[in-house]
């Protein structure tokens, strides 16, 4: 598994998406100063939000691209066939790919956020380490997305389809919490019960990505209960753990055509 992980990391580092992300990051450092000029008050807090948002966005884009390119390579160009002929367990393939992608994401996100934190410290004389609390949340989010993708390769061998599905689930997952809060308000009284039921059930089935969003709270220095924080991390970890287990379970019996 370690070798598979290492292979994935090595491939990821040489992937073009990796460099595009770093270039986009440098570009975002430029924009940082423009945004800073446009704020009126509490520039530091706006810039903290900006730092976290850009880090999250770029990391997720990178992860999406890595997933897509690995799926294309393995499924369309059939390297999966070759890989599984090597002395590797099928489990190793799934674990190596998932954690390889996640580790490249961990590396990039840490790098990017550190850059921003240092920039913030230089500009506002405020060394805001609390922002790093967003990182584990982001990592768990990446793990969730990647394990979802590798869960789906059991169902489809089309990388484009899988990527669309995870993008779709991401968009749903980000808004589920808001949707549920909305249907509980008075303004949602005339929404038919069946829709409410659907939203409610989706709430319990799909991954709630909005749980991992604490960007504003962290930027504005609001207190986040450590219990709550750990609970959110646990939620993501257990969800991904079960997805990976299921994925390995199905993959054992998968025919590689």
């Amino acid at each position, binding site marked *: 598994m370690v070798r598979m992980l290492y292979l994935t990391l090595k*491939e990821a580092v040489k992937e073009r998406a990796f460099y595009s992300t770093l270039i986009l990051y440098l570009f975002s450092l430029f924009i940082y100063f423009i945004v800073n000029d446009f704020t009126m008050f509490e520039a530091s807090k706006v810039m903290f939000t900006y730092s976290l948002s850009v880090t999250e966005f770029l990391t997720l884009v990178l992860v999406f691209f890595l997933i897509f390119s690995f799926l294309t*390579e393995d499924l369309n160009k*059939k*390297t999966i066939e070759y890989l599984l*002929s090597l*002395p590797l367990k099928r489990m190793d393939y799934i674990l190596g790919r998932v954690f390889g992608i996640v580790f490249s994401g961990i590396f990039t996100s840490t790098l990017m956020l550190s850059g921003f934190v240092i920039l913030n410290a230089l500009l506002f004389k405020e060394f805001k380490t609390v922002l790093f609390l967003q990182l584990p949340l982001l990592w768990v989010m990446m793990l969730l997305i990647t394990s979802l993708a590798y869960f789906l390769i059991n169902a489809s061998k089309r990388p484009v389809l899988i990527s669309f599905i995870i993008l779709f689930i991401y968009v749903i997952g980000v808004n589920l919490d808001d949707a549920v809060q909305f249907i509980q308000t008075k303004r949602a009284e005339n929404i038919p019960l069946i829709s409410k039921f659907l939203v409610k059930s989706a709430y319990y089935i799909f991954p709630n990505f909005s749980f991992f969003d604490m960007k504003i709270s962290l930027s504005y220095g609001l207190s986040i209960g450590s219990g709550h924080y750990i609970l959110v991390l646990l939620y993501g970890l257990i969800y991904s753990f079960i997805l990976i287990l299921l994925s390995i379970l199905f993959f054992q019996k998968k025919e*590689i*055509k």
Partner: protein
Amino acid sequence: MKIVEFKEVEKSFRIKDIGGPMQKVLSGISFRVKKGEILGLVGLNGQGKSTTIKIMLGLLFPDKGNVRVFGSYTHDVKIKRRIAYLPENPVFFENLNAVEFLSFVGGLRGVNSKKIKDTIESLIFRVGLQGSEKKSIRKYSKGMVQRLGLAQAFLGSPEFVILDEPLSGLDPLGRKMAKELIIEHKNKGKTVFFTSHILEDIEDMCDRILILNRGKIIKEIERNMLLNKRLEDIFVEALNNGADAVSHA
């Protein structure tokens, strides 16, 4: 001693989508691969050669029948460590270069970590990729990828090498090199199984030849049968007989 044993193996695929009709690719094939031989599997395109290999490697599961490799199942990593495989029209990890790729494979096969560098270097030289070993595989031509594929197949001299169309895409020099590699491997007492649809290649090297048609092995040829008859004639004859047999049935 048997390296591989196929007993009445059947395999069908769905032609289109879920719920569509099934097509039989292998309808009950049985054969053995013996230790120390070069066995060739010949057949027209789309007759089940690749399916046979994939079943052998444990990538596909037979619907009926029994498959044993080294007396066990190929899922086992211990078994897989004794096998090397070269796919048809291979694509390897395009972001890596030849050395990185071969180190990965060698590491998995348990090649001695001290010797691995020299082994890789000599193999690269052997397949004629010297000077390109630090280029990323993405930039390789089709022939170069095939050469690299041969290099990985013989890396760590595994006991049993499975080659799917090993000579396709190679220039005359490359073909000669590949043939030499295969025969050398045999001379070390190792076993080679390969498929091809180019008869001369098979004729040159194989100890035994199986002819696969419409999912059945219709003829098994020993090397000494080729002394006075060309493989091509035997092949065409067998195909005609097979076709007759099918139409009579």
